């Protein structure tokens, strides 16, 4: 582990999340994620992985406990400060969530447009990011004209185009074949090397075991394991 920052980027202290239907998604979770880390979040479906990620971008608020992201308390955060938080946290999904009526370029540019970035900046940044994910030649295509792996890379490009500090990935390889999955993870590693902290929720045992990175395991909302050079299961 390389110590890059002077503080913990993500800080969970006694965090519980109970949904209104009584479901306990997270139960007394304590953990720290440092700047520059690459963390796998594993556990069976319904273990609370997605809730964990949603809490970081404040799509949900915890029922109990304290969450700090970049030293800022998400509980004390005002509603109007949330957009700024989210510009610093990229998010990719299993189902990509691309807009079908926009081209690859427009889908990525969209994330910058909504932050009212200058057109000049957009024209410079979007091609650069598309090049990074290897889709420079497909900028004018629509999502439906791309393979699953390519679509996920568009979604990745959109997530990092605003240069977030943190990248959250919710089972990004869930719909991809093994080779494509590995390609995506290599890309994530590249992005991680450039300084972005990555938290990836996954069921992909192969990838986790091969990467030997920090593994956080959740089960029934409880943090059951936190290994520095972990594998998928013991």
């Amino acid at each position: 582990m390389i110590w890059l920052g002077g503080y913990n980027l993500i800080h969970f202290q006694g965090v519980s999340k109970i949904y209104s239907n009584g479901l306990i998604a997270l139960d007394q979770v304590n953990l720290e994620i440092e700047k520059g880390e690459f963390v796998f979040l594993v556990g069976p479906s319904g273990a609370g992985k997605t809730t964990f990620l949603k809490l970081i971008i404040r799509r949900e608020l915890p029922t109990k406990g304290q969450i700090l992201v970049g030293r800022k308390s998400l509980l004390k955060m005002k509603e109007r400060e949330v957009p700024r938080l989210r510009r610093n946290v990229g998010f990719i999904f299993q189902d990509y969530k691309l807009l079908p009526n926009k081209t690859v370029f427009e889908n990525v540019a969209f994330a910058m447009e909504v932050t009212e970035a200058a057109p000049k900046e957009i024209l410079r940044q979007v091609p650069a990011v598309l090049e990074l994910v290897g889709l420079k030649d497909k900028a004018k295509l629509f999502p439906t004209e791309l393979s699953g792996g390519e679509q996920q890379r568009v979604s990745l490009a959109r997530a990092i185009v605003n240069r977030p500090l943190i990248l959250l990935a919710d089972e990004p390889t869930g719909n991809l074949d093994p080779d494509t999955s590995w390609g995506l993870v290599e890309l994530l590693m590249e992005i991680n090397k450039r300084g972005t902290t990555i938290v990836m929720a996954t069921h992909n045992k192969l990838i986790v075991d091969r990467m030997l990175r920090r593994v956080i395991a959740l089960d029934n909302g409880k943090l059951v394991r936190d290994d520095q050079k972990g594998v998928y299961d013991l």
Partner: protein
Amino acid sequence: MKPRTICYYAKEASMGLYRNRLMSLTAIITITLSLLILGYFYIIVSNCNHFATMAKAVLELRVYLTKDADPIELQTNMVKISGVENVSFVSKEDGAKWLEKNLGTKDLYVTDENPLPDMVNVKLAKEVKLENLVAKLRKLHGVEEVVYGKNFVKMVLMVERIVWIVGIGLIAIVGLFVLYIINNTIRLTVFARRKEIEIMKLVGATDGFIRWPFILEGIFLGLGGALVALLIVSRSYVFFGKYIEQNAPFLQLLSEQMINGVLLWLIPAVGFGFGMFGGLLSIKKFLRV
């Protein structure tokens, strides 16, 4: 707000309107209809007001004198009352002549004696509390009776009040209906774009940024309806004015300039307000992501 952003909002809003053009058209027609009601309501109320003022302005009171009254003294006392512009004395002989002339007969009365009383015409100043003035006149010595077009003024005022009550009620009901229609129209756009909204929220768009295109869509609908309504109301008022002029020239309507002067801002302002509020309502629920 940057000009570029405003362009973006306008583009998104127009796209929303176009995508649901049938519903948009329905919304515009509904808005037009309701603003028509508002426009005509305003025309009727302001004309009633106008009539009432006019009726007061041209009002002459007729004060019948008792037989023992001293016309000179009485007139001096009358002009002292505030609200009285001037007075003129009509003797019973003059009254008889006037009647003979207007009725076209000399056989007015059975006996030789003139049954008419002496009379004083009182011209009123424009701003006057009619009832008070009449009461004061009645107290003067030598006044038998004060006659004036009380019923006419009362009737005009009553019509005005009825129009007010019915109009306000109608506008309230129609207003709610308009909000409902606008709300539903824009909700279609919101629904069609809920995925986009979700992504916008995720990548850190502010609520304002997400909200504005929909508010603008509402405003476009409101102003569109207002424009049509304005055209219809003002054109029809001109037409109606000409009709009245030809067929009932004694009714002096307010000039079209005066009416249009108010409607020109009233109708667009109300359309704008309805549209904006409708847009706000429709997006509210979807922002909680």
